[in-house]
């Protein structure tokens, strides 16, 4: 799914009000950010998959998103690059790559990367999704999909077949710059977001030999 010049921009309605963290939640966000910063400074290569004890599932901002409001969610994320990852709590490859996406979010936060998680869980599985998000230490607002599958798929990328996980990278103008289906390695994620963040490719390291998304 390499996206060429034909790839469209996310187009949405003019008004939408995404959920914002409650005032009660904000001090915790600050604490968590400090924690993440400390962890990031000490061990950049360690996966940031452990949530601080204070991050509780019921306090997460986890809100519905419709196909029509996706564009605004991406725009409001305000990233120089915005990575949208569609996952589900029951999806094994999604769960496997999740810590790497969180690590990517932490590592490139100050370079302008925003990571927007959208859960495709059914209503009855949303509590599981929430628990998983807390366990992964996702202390920023995330979303769950509502409404038509077809419209949701087309809003993210008409080239997407709908298979999970699905990952989409948009630039600051909301233009789709890269996308893929199936789980990816950290090196692949990194190499995909860096050009959008105007960063040079990372020096080839040994782990890159495993980064090609070979058909399994």
């Amino acid at each position, binding site marked *: 799914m390499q996206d060429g010049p034909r790839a469209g921009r996310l187009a949405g309605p003019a008004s939408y009000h995404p959920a914002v963290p409650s005032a009660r939640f904000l001090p915790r966000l600050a604490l968590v950010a400090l924690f993440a910063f400390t962890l990031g400074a000490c061990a950049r290569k360690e996966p940031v998959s452990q949530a601080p004890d204070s991050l509780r599932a019921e306090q997460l901002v986890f809100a519905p998103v419709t196909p029509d409001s996706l564009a605004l969610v991406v725009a409001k994320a305000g990233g120089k690059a915005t990575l949208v990852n569609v996952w589900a709590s029951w999806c*094994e490859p999604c769960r*496997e790559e999740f810590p790497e996406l969180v690590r990517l979010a932490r590592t490139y936060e100050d370079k302008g990367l925003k990571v927007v998680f959208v859960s495709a869980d059914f*209503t009855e599985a949303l509590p599981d999704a929430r628990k998983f998000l807390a366990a992964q230490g996702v202390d920023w607002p995330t979303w769950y999909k509502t409404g038509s*599958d077809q419209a949701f*798929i087309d809003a993210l990328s008409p080239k*997407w077949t709908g298979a999970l996980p699905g990952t989409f990278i948009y630039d600051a103008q909301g233009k789709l710059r890269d996308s*893929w289906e199936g789980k990816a390695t950290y090196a692949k994620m990194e190499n995909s977001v860096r050009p959008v963040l105007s960063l040079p490719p990372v020096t080839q390291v040994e782990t890159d030999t495993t980064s090609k998304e070979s058909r*399994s």
Partner: protein
Amino acid sequence: MKATRAALLAASLVLVSGPATAGETASAPASLALGAKAPMATSKMKTANGKEVSIADVKGAKGTLVVFTCNACPWAKKWESRIVELGNDAGKKGIGMIAINSNDPNVNADDSYAVMQSRAKERGMKFAYAYDATSGIARAFGATRTPEAFLFDASGKLVYHGTIDDNADDAAAVKDAYLANAVNAVAGGKAVPVAETKALGCGIKFRKSSAS
């Protein structure tokens, strides 16, 4: 030292290419185009009731319906009773149905052949539920998720590719039963109203290709 590094690298490569990475899909290859014939139509697969059956074997007078599905995927489970009903009904209308499980059961044991056998019985499947032992059939179709349907007309041309209907979560809230409508159109010798649709689904857990 160099040799050690090389050995470590080789070991890590073996690890990443093992079953743990099954389910990884590459940038999806183009799926079968409308008008195309079914690929690998004469490849035999073991069905849940112990027979060896190919896609060509189940061909009906009016057409053939191929549905990639599985036992474990929550979307496949939500749609399961509708798929069974549709498949049993298609058979009566002269459209031969074959459900195919291409998932590697090493990823989720519920996708094993044994579970297929019990599921076919429990659900009253009157059509073949086949085990794609290499995932090769799904690869040849360019199928990426479960469930995913391909409907061929009497002349063997693909006339519908996509999902079951527009609401996996709630059968009562379905507004457009895409596949049922397509089956009815083909059975009646009419043009399919909507030929291509999409829905969310579980990525097919492909086995490691022997070619790579």
